[in-house]
């Protein structure tokens, strides 16, 4: 649920200050109160370089690869997965989906419709499915973030759309760090309490309720005229207006939190497509996600560490990297070392997210114990020794955290050729929903990944 910051600020100015009492009932999770389970999908674009990615050794005794070295402090919490393949490719030779629609298939488990675009999803994505299952007491429930998104005249922007509410209902990820922050924390502080009923605030609420009631009636008058996909659009619109009305016109219940809950400062403004500030936006997003989950305001998040295209110029990796890295390093006979170095940089950022989750005490352990942080890419592996690209094989997946004891820890699991779709069912079960389908996709979890 998106909370309108501007709307909130108006409330703030109408009253002296109106805040939601996040810490009022601070409570530690213990023997009698189970901590919530959370899941974060952390995407890096354009796959990896096999020779620098693959771990060596056995399942229980393995050596982290060059790219995964930044995760060494967390090795005991890792599940490194080898052998996941892009699901719609039954036999790799028959793949006609191209390499541009995978982003929209990674979390839905189904190939996208349309041509060369990833916005025409054919199923609800797992994150949105999980969101729909979460109790409404979780205030924001999900976040969909990215560090670089701009609709650039229909050229490739859709490749950044991982999430969908259903067929043809893409969820646009938020790239603006302030808006991302506001989705969770607008109206929330870590120290205050409600200022109590204020006549001006109450009047504003009443006014807004009247306006949105009229909007709802207008939408309901149109609904019966539509069926199928057109009706689905209107239904979604109506749902969102109702949620907005609830948010804006009723006082949210106090948020019960664990001890680690703090509200970070609102991040600095940053143009959501400015290349140089991608690292800053990514760190900002990670902090928002970690804090939001520590406060149990969000339990599901998708983070695009760059975008779905790999067309940033990652000069922050080092000298010689200030170039469109898709063009420079992922095609042709060269670029393997740079490709690996860029992927490693993203793994470093992922490692910082792992550290954030480990820093929050929860019960006898940390928040990481109750979370699955999933590192993945929409592409598979290239090889130093060859020149393959657009690979759909051996997608680079790592899970940090067991999600409440579900996933194996400290393991390097080599799977027989397995669909990435099945992994989504592991995630579904790990989160406490042992179901055999979500949306129109069915599957079973991969047993070898379960503790």
């Amino acid at each position, binding site marked *: 649920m*998106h909370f*309108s910051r*501007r*709307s909130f600020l108006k409330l703030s100015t109408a009253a002296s200050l109106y805040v939601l009492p996040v810490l009022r009932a601070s409570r530690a999770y213990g023997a009698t109160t189970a901590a919530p389970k959370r899941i974060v999908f952390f995407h890096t674009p354009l796959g990896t370089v096999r020779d620098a990615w693959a771990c060596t050794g056995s399942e229980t005794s393995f050596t982290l690869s060059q790219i995964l070295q930044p995760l060494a402090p967390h090795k005991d919490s890792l599940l490194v997965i080898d052998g996941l393949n*892009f699901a719609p490719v039954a036999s790799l*030779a028959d793949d*006609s989906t*191209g*390499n541009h629609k995978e982003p929209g298939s990674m979390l839905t488990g189904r190939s996208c419709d349309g041509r*060369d*675009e990833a*916005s*025409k999803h054919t199923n609800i994505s797992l994150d949105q499915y999980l969101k729909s299952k979460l109790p409404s007491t979780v205030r924001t429930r999900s976040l969909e973030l990215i560090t670089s998104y701009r*609709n*650039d*005249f*229909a*050229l490739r*922007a859709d490749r950044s759309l991982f999430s969908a509410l259903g067929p*043809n*209902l*893409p*969820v*646009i990820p938020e790239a603006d760090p302030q808006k991302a922050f506001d989705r969770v924390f607008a109206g929330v502080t870590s120290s205050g309490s409600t200022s109590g009923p204020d006549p001006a605030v109450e009047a504003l609420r009443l*006014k807004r309720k*009247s*306006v*949105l009631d*009229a*909007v709802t009636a*207008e*939408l309901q*008058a*149109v609904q019966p*005229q539509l*069926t*199928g996909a*057109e009706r689905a*659009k209107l239904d979604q*619109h109506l749902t*969102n*207006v109702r949620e*907005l009305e609830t948010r804006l016109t009723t006082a949210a219940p106090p948020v019960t939190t664990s001890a680690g809950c703090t509200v970070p400062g609102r991040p600095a403004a940053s143009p959501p497509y400015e*290349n140089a500030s991608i690292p800053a936006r990514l760190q900002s997003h990670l902090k928002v996600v970690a804090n939001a989950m520590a406060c149990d305001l969000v339990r599901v998040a998708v983070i695009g560490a760059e975008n779905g295209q790999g*067309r*940033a*110029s990652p000069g922050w990796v080092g000298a010689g990297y200030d*170039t*469109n890295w*898709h*063009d*420079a390093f992922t*095609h*042709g*006979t*060269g670029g393997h070392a740079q490709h690996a170095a860029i992927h490693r940089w993203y793994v470093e950022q992922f490692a910082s997210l792992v550290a954030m989750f480990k820093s929050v005490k929860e019960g006898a352990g940390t928040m990481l114990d109750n979370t699955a942080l999933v590192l993945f890419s929409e592409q598979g592996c290239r090889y130093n020794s060859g*020149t*393959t*690209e*657009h690979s759909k094989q051996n997608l680079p997946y790592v899970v940090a955290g067991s999600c409440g004891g579900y996933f194996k820890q400290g393991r390097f699991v080599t799977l027989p050729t397995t669909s990435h779709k099945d992994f989504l069912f592991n995630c579904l079960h790990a989160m406490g929903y042992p179901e055999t389908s979500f949306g129109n996709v069915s599957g079973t979890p991969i047993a070898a990944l379960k503790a």
Partner: protein
Amino acid sequence: MTASRLWVLALVTLCSGCEGMLEVSTPTTPPDDSDWPPKNVPSTQGTPATPPTGTTPPDPTVPGPTPNPPTMTDPGGTTVTCGAPPAARVWRLSHRQYDAAARAVLPVTSTPASTFEAETSGSGFTNGADTAYVSAALAADYFDAAEALAAQAVQHLDVLLPCTPADPANAACVKTFIERTGLRVFRTPLDTAQQARFFALFQKGTTPTQGVQMVLEAMLQSPGFLYRFELGGPGASGAQVPLTSYELASALSFLVWNAPPDDALLAAAKSGGLDTPAGVDAQVDRLVADPRARDFLWRFLAEDFQVGALETTTKDGAAFPAFTPALVADLQAEAHAFADDVVWNGAGTLSALLTADYSMLNQSLAGFYGVSGVTGTALRKVSLPTGQRAGLLTQGSFLAVRGDARSGSPVQRGLFVRERLLCQEMPAPPPNVIDTLPAPSATNTTRGRYQAHLSASSCAACHRLMDPIGFAFENYDGIGKWRTTENGVPVDASGELVSTKAINGTFTGALALANTLAQAREVSDCVAVSYFRYGLGRRDTPADACSVLAMKDAFAASGGKLATLARALVHTPGFAIRTRP
């Protein structure tokens, strides 16, 4: 056999699919449009239409769809079966349309949509209808914008309220305001339930002015404002019904202006002025003649030629230090000004867009193109160096977008011609493709590097359809600067078109290629199809066969005049008829 060899075999099989990709369609006889709306209803399937109802009083002068031949025949005798008209739908306004609509109907000047949630491009263009809906984030954006716009608008009660003095405490005045403003905001008259709803809302204001403000806030978040309706009148499932006259008015104005109907168009909808072909044509001609028509056509061209993507194109700073934000802004402005000049001041044709020997330059751009004697920052019409530049495909905007970070890209440039000008869709690159393309260096040439695609049979099956076209652009580097040598080697800009309908052959240089393309009926047809998709916010389907043929024929018959595309689309069968869900 090793896995990699198996791959090569698989790829040869896959890319042999490139051989059969020719689009099959040929010119046809234009549909008979003496009836309105134009229609393609098979006589065996036609369901008697229900006249438009709802907010529009049934008008006995509106002809319902009558049986019509279900096929069209081209001059060669090939018969194309016409499908059912498109399904009824709602089409959410694009963000650009939102701002235009708010400014058109209320005394406001802000453009709140510029900070709305980003849009998708589900149908290949940013205005695709299929994936445009109101997400949670967008609902909140709409809420904020409505509050801001309404607050601005009520600063001008004298403009808003249709009475003197403009007194919001005057109930009769407010009722008239709701009726009149509602008509403009919703682009159709409010029904009695809506009028009552908004008046009841007005009464909930703590002051009369706040009541007016609340009415505007609700209207701006209502489906009547946020969507274009293409439902037609009521009818049984499967019935084919004409758009109501107000729906048609919106379809026309958003198509031509990217903005809502003005008062004259709404009046025509009310008076029956859109019930005849002549009436519709008169309105379309009026809209096209208005300066507001420039916006939609430019958006179409910017997206179709993808020059709008320049702003988000990234280059290697070491390879192209000249590719600065200032150059990007100049190149974008050039493309826009050039297209506007060609379409509205010049020949107006697709051919001119592809071959005009001038562009719109300022001093910086003149330096970029090697033209002397241009000073200042303002763009003006300047002749281009003979033999080096002509038309949009030789401008820096197109060439930079269709270039790699460190070099030009024969693949990207050839792919553009293949897909966007010939309307042949290439298969996506196969998985695990073996790419032996060497990296750019000081000792190789772009053409030399890309020859790798053509020497490996597994690559050549597809790349022969792209790279030899792209080679025509070898006189331009990755950002479009002219060159006659690359790393000391004279540029070879010879190329070849294969697998076309009528323009197979060799040529040398982009100007020769552009000349060939400019004269080709298949290119004209392709642009007509692209406009069909953009204008309707969806890809064409087999059911659109007759509409697509009609579109192609009308565009060709106009001599490729881009400003006629709107009228051609309005004349297609099915533009003004919908199949009830």
